[in-house]
């Protein structure tokens, strides 16, 4: 699958919540877009990732 523009091999099926925790993302500070659609936080535990998924993990940074 692709995460933030980088190819990642998904060895086994896992939930979005597990993937984010394994990769040390701060769940309070991110928003997820999966295949062009926003995934709300209450769905993280129920969404299963597939190897064909394209995901963006986004956060706020300084900006004008």
């Amino acid at each position, binding site marked *: 699958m692709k995460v*933030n*523009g980088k190819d990642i091999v998904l060895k086994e099926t896992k939930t979005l919540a597990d993937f984010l925790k394994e*990769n*040390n*993302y*701060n769940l309070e*500070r*991110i*928003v997820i*877009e999966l295949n062009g659609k*926003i995934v*709300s936080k209450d769905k993280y535990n129920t969404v299963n990732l597939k190897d064909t998924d394209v995901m*963006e*993990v*986004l*956060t*706020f*940074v*300084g*900006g*004008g």
Partner: protein
Amino acid sequence: MDKLIIAGHEFSSRFILGSGKFSLDLVKAAVESAGAEIVTLALRRANTKTEYNILDFIPKTVTLLPNTSGARTAEEAVRIARLSRELGCGDFVKIEVIKDTKFLLPDNYETIKATEILAKEGFVVMPYMYPDLNAARDLANAGAATIMPLAAPIGSNLGLLTKHFIKIIIDEIKLPVIVDAGIGSPSQACEIMQEGAAAVMVNTAIATAKNINEMAEAFKLAIIAGRKAYLAGLGRVLNFKAEASSPLIDFLEDK
């Protein structure tokens, strides 16, 4: 009490601070020195290695104003605005649509399209724009909460290059006009506030100053001074003549 009102939200400060180009540990002090109640942010890909987030350095009482920087079309701006709102920091959004990579000038046409879509979705839309009166009218009709004309190219510190056209928008548009981009010094902020701008947004002028906190405070005071001068009403101007301030009678000599 003189308040800045944006879509029903009241603010005591008329100083909007941009948070770009600062190291994170300087952001909090800059916000406090500025007395800012609105701070802009950008949305970017998250880095798992970064321990701290900018939200950890912005006081909770501050209203966050995410921008749509990086958007080249209305569609991209709408996407970024929706993602930003999902982060749970409110409905405010500063629309920024820029195709021109050399001068970073905003695309008014795409900005109007994005404003219309997002206003219908309940966003408080604050569009950054090139100061054109027709576009400002279209933005107002599209549901904008404020108009944010540029003073000069982003990050240039060049000052009020478009002052006359900003003044036209201030006079003709009923929405708060917030001057954004290009203001390089407190005196320029004061000058445009005197002309009736509702607020000023500053980022680079502070982030590139030698002393960030002192400059943030200098802008705060200048914006307050400019607002007071606007409310007081400037005295009249005499061209090519003078008028003595002291009485012209009872001099200490005989005629």
